[in-house]
């Protein structure tokens, strides 16, 4: 049911959400959009991923969220490749009957995408390039689910 897209191209949150949740018994839509920050003079970010596994890993996370919160609709878009500060990296959207389920499912998707979907971020700044280190708090965030 949920839609998953892994792509190099930029996307537009507004047009992606046209018709989202339509036809379901939807009272609540939550979305989250991740954006490249220009912190510390970072000039660009590159995201590497694991073609094949990426789509399957996200689909599994989506299926778990749909089952657990009885979602009426679900969307995940995640980019890879090069992007500049201000560009959208990814988005999730969840549609459900009530607001608590929509919010919780969106947070669950984000927590699992952070630590369980095979993406790796590399930042390019004035001091050169560096792989973004995974944060303990991101791994810890999974324990709440």
């Amino acid at each position: 049911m949920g839609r998953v897209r892994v792509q190099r191209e930029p996307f537009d949150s507004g047009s992606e959400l046209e018709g989202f949740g339509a036809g379901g018994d939807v009272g609540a839509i939550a979305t989250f959009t991740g954006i490249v920050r220009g912190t510390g003079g970072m000039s660009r970010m590159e995201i590497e991923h694991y073609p094949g596994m990426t789509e399957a890993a996200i689909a599994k996370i989506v299926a778990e969220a749909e089952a657990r919160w009885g979602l009426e609709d679900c969307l995940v878009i995640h980019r890879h490749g090069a992007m500049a500060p201000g560009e959208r990296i990814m988005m999730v959207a969840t549609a459900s009957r009530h607001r608590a389920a929509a919010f919780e499912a969106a947070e669950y998707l984000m927590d699992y995408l952070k630590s369980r979907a095979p993406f790796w971020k590399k930042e390019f700044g004035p001091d050169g390039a560096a792989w973004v280190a995974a944060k303990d708090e991101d791994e810890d965030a999974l324990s709440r689910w």
Partner: protein
Amino acid sequence: MLDVLYFAWVRERIGEPRERVETQAATVAELVDELRAREARYALAFADLSALRVAVDQELTEFDAPLSGVREVAFFPPMTGG
């Protein structure tokens, strides 16, 4: 024969994104030992397993996972998606 894939800084240390590996290793850990013994770049990439994650046939798993019937093994650092 296995396809072995490397991502992010593991790929950079080893110097290539994937290779075919002839191995009799029974587990991922045994495969890692074989690779470490090859060359310094492998020993460097696999120096600290706690900093690595492994997927077997595109499923996250542990280093004691068996390799019987497996086609593809991938090594990479903890993921930083989202």
